[in-house]
């Protein structure tokens, strides 16, 4: 792949001119990387509870402002938040299904999002630490979030909604992989 030879650098020449092709796919999709591992379907509940709590708090505050202080703008804020939350709730299951991760030979792949898609690749050797956290709802469902922290400013990879046993075995596996591929800072 990356080659010190500069003749290889000229990537666009290798690619077909996209303008003349019959409409290629607009979506980001990594081809043939293998089977993505999905997070537990129960994680939808965690997200739903989070969205509802959020909406209740914001709408409650807004209606207080509206009723007590006669602030009409607060009413509009409350309505917008309510509508957004409902839309969120509708798409929640699909969103959770879009979360996936994959252990490749040398790096960890992660994806999430349907409207705002993103793919992240982090080499195992760059691992600084692995964090497992459990929120109240997640703990009740027996789920945990796993965070792969690197030295980078932007947070590394955060995989939510893993079954607790899975999270722990994944952590051990990742630590083991990182040990064998350790790269200094």
């Amino acid at each position, binding site marked *: 792949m990356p080659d010190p030879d500069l003749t290889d650098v000229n990537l666009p020449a290798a690619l077909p001119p996209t303008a003349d092709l019959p409409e290629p796919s607009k979506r980001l999709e990594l081809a043939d990387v293998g089977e993505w591992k999905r997070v537990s379907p129960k994680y939808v509940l965690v997200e739903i509870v989070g969205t509802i709590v959020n909406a209740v708090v914001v709408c409650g505050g807004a209606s207080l402002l509206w009723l007590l202080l006669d602030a009409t703008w607060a009413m509009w804020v409350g309505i917008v938040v309510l509508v957004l939350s409902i839309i969120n709730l509708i798409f929640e299951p699909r969103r959770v299904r879009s979360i996936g991760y994959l252990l490749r030979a040398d790096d960890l792949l992660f994806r999430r999002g349907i409207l705002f898609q993103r793919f992240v690749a*982090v080499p195992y050797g760059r691992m600084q630490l692995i964090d497992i956290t459990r929120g109240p709802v997640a703990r009740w469902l027996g789920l945990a979030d796993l965070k792969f922290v690197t030295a980078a*400013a932007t947070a590394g990879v955060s995989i939510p909604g893993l079954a607790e046993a899975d999270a722990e075995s994944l952590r051990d596996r990742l630590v083991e992989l990182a040990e064998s591929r350790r790269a200094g800072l």
Partner: protein
Amino acid sequence: MTEPAAAVPAPLAAPRTDLTDGEWHRLHPATPLLRGGIFMVAIIGFIVANLRERLIDLFIGEENYGGDPIDEIYQRGATGWALLIIAGILLVILVAFYLSWRMHTFRVNGEVVEVRSGLVFRSHRKARLDRVQGVNLARPLIPRLFGAARLEITVAGQDGNVQLAYLGSKLADDLRRDILHLASGLRQARQPGTAPDAPGALAAAAQPLPGDSAAPPLIGPPTAHSALGDFATARFNEFRAPELDPDAAPPESIVRIPPGRLIGSVVLSGFTVFLLLAGVGLIISVIAGSSGWVLVAVLPGLIGSAGYYFSRITKTLRFSIAGTTDGVRVGYGLLSTSSQTLPPGRIHAIKVSQPILWRRFGWWQISINTAGQTSGRSSGAVTSTTLLPVGTLADVEKVLQLALPGFDTDAHRALVENGMLGGRKRDAGLADFYSNAPARAVWLRPFSWWRTGWAVSGPVALIRRGVLSRDLILVPLARMQGVRISQGAVRRRLRLASADLHTVAGPVSASLSVIDVEEALVLFEWMSTGAVRSALADTSHHWSRTATPVPATEATE
């Protein structure tokens, strides 16, 4: 706490310090005074403020200071008590200073640098030498006058630095060299008595042992020479040539910045534009007949901005950058000087940029991301991430050669130059080495789409972007922490995506805001495999071990 000879400036003849013997050593005896300097100034200021009326009276002779504390004391006949209290406080301060100096010790061995300090709350800091991100030798103005310097060993993470403040100037130089040698993986040959005449010189220069010293050593830095004249000459020489490094490779800077260019670059900054806009706004508001309070509110800011220009200029005056065997050495500062050594492979991202105001002059700036940031003063932090405050195209090329060894063939140079100046529009006929954003990206980047592109050359990824401020970003793949591609609703419509190369925190963010979808996938593959491969091939954490294996084996006892 065995050898208290640490505070002695090592004699010039000694090839290296014997501070790296793994024993505990002490810092420069004037340390507490220098560190608490501001505190002392505050106390003196307080006293002077209280005596102000009395001083005025002394010169003008107006009998009008009833009620000031000193007068009160005098009238009540409590002068004796007051003097006693002052003497007591002084004594306490002196003892505290002395004890804090006694308790502040450090040691260096082949593996770690350790510092222990604190009287009541003990702290113990350790930095592993193979994780050293940089060694910074700073001489703030006041300590510099006293011939002292601060040695800061930077390690990754926020506030993880080990500071040796303060050391004798010469000693700090030598210790820096030794630490870098140790960190480079070379085992230092440990000679018992550095040179035939060294033990004698050391003994002559030795401080009175803390055990038998009656008075706390607060009088100032000790010198081997007793004569004040010698002391002054030595200080003067140090002041003139802060980078006396006899055996460190070429101390000569590869870049010269004429003062005119430096001043021009500071004046032609975004800050000036802001200032001019503020000035215009002010004039308009005055003409429009607003009351004088706007002026009162803005004037202090204007005066403060003069201070900003002054500090920016003095800080970057006498900038120097040179390659040594232990990495890139960057020095700057007129009154307070600082010189930072970045071992090979400690640079995580490089940005070559040109604000639009500099374009006419062809000036460029280089900033970098490193894993360890200089702690404390924010002013220091700005300069420690600047590898070139202002320079021409030729200067940029020279600095990049230092920062990315092996990235200096003609082809690489063309790639860099293209990244700085080029773009799809300009180089229609020429070969453009960059993979550019498609024309439909004009919807998102109306001015800069034609020069938004990326390339990978060997172990380095390059990103070209921006037209208001032309940026070229170079990321050594061995240091990259991860790669991300993402796509929102708007970019999906346009069959575009965006890409980010994750690096450690710093002024450089390696992101590409528009890229073709298909190409984003290619970039993702290239970057992720490149990161793994480059890291495997990377050996920079013990940089000398591979370069010179012979002395290493011979020196390990």
